[in-house]
């Protein structure tokens, strides 16, 4: 490890309603691989966005190579030598490898771009990295692993001094990960400062020199990888005081029948062989980090996305669900994660939104029974205490919490026995959150079966009777609430699934 090459001190960044970064410190030395860890919303990507100029910081200093700097856009950061290799690779699939690497700075002969010079340069870059890629290939024809290597080549061609990797191994096979690590070690030996953002504990242990942990927008601390244990890292990630009482035992009666059984659900990379059961009157929490595949699982179950395989039983009978229409008819409701885009029709009224899933129950022949519609809508507005001047108010004029209540009302009108809540309290103020928690509890008590997907550990622990943890498309843990802890959940959520060994964590198993 060499000198400190980059220092971020006291970085502060706020968005309306969210204090995303609270006096965060972070430093990178040349010739080191420095991991940045934290759960969802901890602030890792916000910090990197501030560094690379996508966001402007509210306070704090960034010192790079001894000078204080402030980048106003990614281009400036790139030119200074700080490059980020995104998780969603930023490339133009239709252009070739060389064209992508040198986009914006093509060597020219008069009016024409000198493609052969670009190809030669690219070959040299790949030789430096010790990889074999044909620069004339179209970017989209390469595997994800190779595309990533092109991004790395692009980074070093910009004379980068600091390279940030954002979840680099999510889409790679074991062999490809090994190859990537060879390159990273080589870069480290050459003096690059590397930031490695990942949640995969095993990898952190394998490749990094130091680990910095963030939590809830704050910088918690830095450990030397060799000298610390996984437990210590997880402790730092979750070690918060939860102000609310987590559930101590399941409120679901032990003899409750299984209303939903899902087996071997497969839908692309994000849903791999997922199986689980759901009981009547139960709240089943789905925990995991962003990108774990929970929303994708719910959507595949709901018929919103196509699936490759999977059997679904409802109340013991096998059902075939290929579209949301099938799911709704089978008795499943799904409250989307992104309520503005998928949950409600903003330009329409509360009434129109509330009856959207059940319109055929409000029709006499072809015609809509508007009085009945209004009556039922009002009933739910009252029951849910939705704050609105009237049921004809356009939904876009309501606050986030009240919009969510309209979505909930829509599905309550449907009276389905299985309800899937995807991030039900995201973007909602504390008061409304409480109301939604109480509502979910009442619904479960009245016999509905609820799946709650949430990235907030506190919420999971407070509401769930049972918890399923997912990581990168696979189910990695299942706990009863009585024995669940933040650490156990986080451990399962960051578990690197060995390709040969796919056993999920059970209680009592050492990590």
């Amino acid at each position, binding site marked *: 490890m060499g000198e400190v090459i980059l220092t971020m001190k006291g970085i502060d960044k706020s968005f309306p309603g969210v204090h995303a970064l609270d006096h965060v410190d972070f430093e990178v030395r040349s010739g080191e691989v420095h991991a940045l860890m934290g759960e969802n919303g901890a602030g890792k990507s916000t910090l990197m966005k501030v560094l690379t100029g996508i966001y402007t910081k509210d306070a704090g200093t960034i010192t790079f190579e001894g000078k204080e700097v402030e980048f106003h856009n990614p281009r400036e950061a790139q030119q200074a030598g700080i490059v980020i290799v995104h998780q969603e690779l930023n490339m133009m699939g239709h252009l070739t490898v060389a064209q992508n690497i040198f986009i914006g700075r093509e060597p020219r002969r008069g009016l024409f771009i000198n493609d052969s010079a670009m190809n030669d340069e690219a070959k040299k870059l790949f030789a430096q990295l010790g990889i074999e890629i044909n620069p004339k290939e179209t970017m989209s024809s390469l595997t994800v692993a190779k595309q990533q290597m092109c991004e790395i080549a692009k980074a070093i061609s910009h004379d980068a001094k600091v390279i940030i990797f954002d979840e680099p191994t999510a889409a790679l096979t074991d062999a490809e990960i090994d190859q990537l690590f060879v390159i990273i070690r080589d870069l480290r030996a050459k003096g690059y400062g590397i930031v490695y953002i990942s949640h995969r504990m095993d990898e952190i242990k394998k490749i990094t020199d130091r680990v910095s942990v963030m939590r809830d927008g704050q910088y918690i601390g830095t450990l030397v990888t060799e000298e610390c244990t996984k437990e210590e890292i997880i402790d730092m990630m979750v070690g918060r005081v939860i102000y609310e009482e987590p559930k101590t035992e399941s409120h679901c009666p032990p003899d409750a029948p299984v209303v939903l059984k899902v087996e071997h659900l497969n839908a692309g990379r994000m849903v791999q062989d997922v199986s689980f059961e759901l009981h009547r009157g139960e709240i089943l929490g789905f925990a995991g980090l962003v990108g774990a595949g929970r929303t994708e699982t719910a959507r595949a179950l709901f018929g*919103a996305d196509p699936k490759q395989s999977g059997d679904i039983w409802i109340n013991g009978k096998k059902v075939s669900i290929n579209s949301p229409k099938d799911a*709704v008819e089978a008795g499943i409701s799904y409250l*989307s994660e992104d309520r503005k885009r998928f*949950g409600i029709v903003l*330009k329409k009224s509360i009434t129109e939104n509330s009856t959207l899933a059940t*319109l055929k129950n409000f*029709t006499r022949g072809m*015609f809509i029974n508007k009085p009945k519609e209004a009556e039922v809508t009002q009933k739910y507005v009252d029951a849910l205490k939705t704050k609105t001047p009237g049921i004809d108010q356009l939904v876009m004029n309501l606050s986030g919490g009240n919009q969510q209540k309209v979505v909930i009302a829509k599905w309550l009108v449907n009276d389905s026995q299985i309800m899937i809540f995807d991030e039900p309290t995201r973007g909602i103020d504390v008061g409304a959150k409480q109301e939604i928690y109480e509502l979910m509890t009442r619904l479960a008590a009245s016999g509905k079966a609820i799946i709650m997907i949430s990235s907030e550990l506190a919420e999971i622990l407070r509401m769930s009777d049972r918890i399923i943890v997912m990581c990168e498309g696979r189910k990695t843990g299942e706990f009863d609430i009585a024995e669940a802890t933040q650490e156990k959940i986080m451990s399962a959520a960051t578990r690197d699934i060995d390709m040969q060994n796919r056993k999920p964590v059970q209680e009592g198993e050492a990590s």
Partner: protein
Amino acid sequence: MKDLLNRFKSLKLVRIMGFNRVVLIGVIIVLCLIFQVLSAVLNHGNVFLTYARFTSAMNYGYFIGFLALGVTFVIATGGIDFSVGPVMFCAALISGYCFNNYGFPMWVSLIMCPLIGMVFGTVGGFFVSYLHLPSFITSLALMQIAKGVGSIFTKTQNVSWPGSSDPGGWYRSLSNLDITVGGQRVNIPTGLIILIVVAILCSIVLNKTKAGRYMICLGANREAVRLSGVDTRRWEMLAYVICGTLAGFAAIFYVGCYTTVQPVKGDTFNNEAIAACVMGGTSMAGGLASILGTVIGSFIIAIMQEGILSMGFNIAFQYSLTALILLGAVIADVMSRRRRN
């Protein structure tokens, strides 16, 4: 100024009809006045505001009105249909040809018109809602196909429907009924009555039926409606079927007033129909539609057309003006959408 505007907006009549629509009626009144003055000045005595002019304008307004009503449904779902004019002509050509050359009874030919339109609407709707093709290019392609089909069927000849005194000519009374009252010949605009009835039906479908609710909502946010368990493809296609059927229906009123149909023509009417819709408050983004606005918009187009003709201007001038109106309507629509965002 803003105060006055707000007080005007809160008048009961304005609230019922919508601010937009009241403005449009104001536009009609202003236009009539302008034409009245201009025609008095330029045409020496051949004034604008006469009953004859009114029925003449209405003749233009009928078929445009039906076309525009159909397009309203498609635009409400967030799409667009550039084929309505040629589809109308295709229906008129084929049905008229059958009447003239194959001896079809008039009532059969009349029924054929909306049916032919329905076929086009179904095809277009299928490509857009089930194959997810962009509606603008699908309808442009259909426009070409409609032009081709109509022309091929009639061997590139014009088709003239029967005159009022010819056998079968009773269809004309659907558009205009001439009766003698006390020695005077009076023209009753029956087409207007039918237009209003159909408009009311369209309004009922759009505002009071399940189909209409789905069509409008999917235009506003298709994915949210799909995720609520609705088969959006079926309802989206229905909008195109309705549009095609109304385009075919419009043919009856075109030939009822203008008798002769030329093949490979009709696309100017597309612009006018779309302009009438957008002027009337139907947003091209989808999710917002007003039948009343469309009807008023059609009247505006009709009056403009009549006014320009009454002043002796070139017909090309009218196309240009409509084009500019549509331009203005589209700009206004885009701006209001940006403001909302």
